[in-house]
């Protein structure tokens, strides 16, 4: 009863198909042929009523269809009517003759899309860039010490987890007793007479980065890579004093609150298609802790005072910077993830640290004895 002939030239077509007019749910069994005079349109003859034409260049096949043995056609200028053809030869012929069959419908409302896109970007930028930092700064001042400590505990665990090998265990906390004792000694010397709202918690993580960072609630965290790279215990003490400056100024608390707000917004934006990739990114940022220039300078000044008060030379900090610079010439270009060396004003800070030591005598008691320094370097191997 149905027949399609694709061999003859010009092609002929005479089949039956299912037609839906988009007005009623009734299936109409229609006769389909190529319009008599031309072959540029399908002539569709319903069981009752007059025949009508569908121009071939307006035919559109529905995309991504599962049912392979039928072809569902619509019209580019009619969103509702559908013609379902099941005759294989007719389907083949139409696919061959209608180049516009798989043409896409034009995107409508592009202006609205762009407008809301700009709105979304502006909204996110405003929230992450202005509102959240502003609130985080205020709230950091209001957070009671116990809360800050709890926030620090949680953040420390997150950082350990995130920086550990992917899927494997968290980074190891090194607690060799002799090294820990040496660290305690250094800490006591630097915090002498300092009134902190919470006890200082100094931790060492096993890892290569020449890095140290502060977390909320009095956490100061070293990677043992820093001990390996430092030339003297005084340099480690200088770093500790600097981080102590961040702790006293509550800088890490601000950063942690800020990322608590930002993490959800970023997750919203990217739909977490990477399965937690965003969390990793933020943990990384937390460690890098891009404090403002002012915060860094304030922490440095705090460190100089502390170091001088403890009978140590502030230029130890400069010495460490120089070592880092010598080891990694590209450091200032951002080639290394290190809180210290990635800072843009590294040269200035070296100069400032040296200036702060001007007039101090060189013969002072080192931060640790040789034995203690050896113990600290080996804190992860005890």
């Amino acid at each position, binding site marked *: 009863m149905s027949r399609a002939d694709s061999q003859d030239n010009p092609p002929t077509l005479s089949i039956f198909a299912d037609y839906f007019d988009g007005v009623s749910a*009734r299936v109409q069994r229609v006769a389909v042929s190529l319009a008599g005079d031309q072959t540029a349109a399908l002539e569709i003859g319903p069981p009752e009523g007059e025949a009508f034409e569908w121009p071939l260049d307006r035919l559109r096949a529905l995309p991504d269809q599962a049912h392979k043995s039928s072809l569902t056609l619509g019209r580019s200028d009619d969103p509702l009517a559908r013609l379902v053809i099941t005759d294989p030869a007719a389907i083949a012929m139409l696919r061959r003759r209608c180049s516009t069959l798989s043409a896409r419908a034009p995107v409508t*409302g592009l202006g609205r899309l762009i407008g*809301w896109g700009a709105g979304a970007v502006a909204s996110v930028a405003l*929230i992450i860039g202005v509102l959240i930092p502003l609130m985080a700064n205020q709230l950091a001042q209001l957070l009671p010490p116990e809360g800050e400590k709890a926030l620090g505990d949680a953040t420390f665990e997150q950082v350990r987890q995130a920086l550990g*090998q992917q899927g494997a265990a968290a980074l190891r906390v090194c607690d060799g007793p002799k090294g820990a004792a040496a660290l305690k000694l250094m800490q006591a010397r630097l915090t002498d007479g300092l009134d902190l709202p919470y006890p200082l918690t100094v931790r060492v993580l096993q*890892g290569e980065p020449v890095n140290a960072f502060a977390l909320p609630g009095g956490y100061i965290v070293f990677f043992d890579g820093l001990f390996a790279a430092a030339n003297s215990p005084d340099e480690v003490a200088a770093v500790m004093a600097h981080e102590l400056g961040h702790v006293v100024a509550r800088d890490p608390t601000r950063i942690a609150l800020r990322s608590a707000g930002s993490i959800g917004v970023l997750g919203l934006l990217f739909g977490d298609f990477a399965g937690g990739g965003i969390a990793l990114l933020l943990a990384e940022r937390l460690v890098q802790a891009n404090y403002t220039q002012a915060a860094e300078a304030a922490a440095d000044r705090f460190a100089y005072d502390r170091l001088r008060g403890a009978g140590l030379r502030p230029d130890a900090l400069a010495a460490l910077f120089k070592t880092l610079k010598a080891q990694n010439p590209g450091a200032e270009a951002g080639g290394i993830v290190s809180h210290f060396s990635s800072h843009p004003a590294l040269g200035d800070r070296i100069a400032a640290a040296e200036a702060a030591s001007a007039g101090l005598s060189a013969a002072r008691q080192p931060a640790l004895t040789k034995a203690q320094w050896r113990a600290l370097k080996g804190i992860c191997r005890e």
Partner: protein
Amino acid sequence: MISLSDLDTEYAGRKAPLFRLVLGASVLTVLTLGFYRFWMKTRLRRYYWSAIRPGGLSLEYVGRGSEKLLGFLIAVVFLAFYIGIVNLILVFFSFSVLDGPGAAYAMSFVGIIPLVFFARYRARRYILARTRWRGIRMGLEPGAWGYSWRAMMHWTLAILTLGVLWPRATFWLEKYRTDRTWFGDLRLTQGGRWTMLYRPFRHFLVPWIVSLAVVAAALAGGDLRLLLLLVLTVPWTIFGIFHYLVQSFRILAEAKTADGVEFKAAPRTGRIIGIYALGLTLAYSSTTALVAVAGVLLFALFNLSGLPHDLLTEMFSRVTVAGWLMAAASIVAYFAIFIAYGAFYQIFVTMPVIGHYAETLTIGGRARLNKVRQRRRDEFAEADGFAEALDLGAAI
């Protein structure tokens, strides 16, 4: 009654084309930083809808990716405030009052639940408004807030009664949705009573109550050997959940009417459990096999020496060609695992599950269906993007 004029449902879903579709769309999603996901979802729906063929006539999904993106952008403008500011305040209060993050997560979660129900209803309205069969639009009347507060009440009651009133929530919420559902100018009605769901619910309720009682007795200082009963009751409870979900669908479907149009559904619990068990096994093992192959290839490519022990540190600290190649290959591998698992899950779990529900569905009332007239288009373009922003309906 099954009669000759009833419309059986064919299912045209096939693994190979679907796999290609998911794979291609997932790669595009990653390459576009996630933004292609709106089009991916659209294409998947088009495929699944067209695979379902009641009476040999495919459903059609006419939603568009661009309208989902629009909805998402609108949602971002408003939700970014909510999520950013509210999360920050919650974290602050949780740490300042309760010394821990738990309360913040809990409050953040509870705070978002009404929005989740709201978004679900709207997403359903959008989906139905974009679904056609025989050229006729389906539709859902507005009523998302009404749904949201009802859902909150019903689920609170169900939780307070330790799950005993779960069927009541299922029934009334399904009735709320069904009674607002249209096919063209034909309105659906959910008949029956909530108590009819207790027949399949027994298989959950009995082992669940026994489990609770056993644990309570053990905690109260009773004989610890009682806990051995859990070996029996816990798997039974899990079976009961599946059984309830599958059979409540069947009972509710068969109690729906629309002016003489009726439904017969016959999904089998065993079949659904089988699909999940086999499908998840296949999806995991296929992904694992792929990871193993990729791992061997990567290993061969970088031949021991280049393998870093800490990828991220390595990535930034060694600006060498080998280092960057390694990092790039690892990132590709990382995404490939997600993509592969997603594609395997679609073909081994989602597709057969939908297929089983489709193939066991019969629609009666052919004559009445022929009289159905078209309904007006429900614009409502932004609804689905809102649900997407809340990360609902992750699959399709």
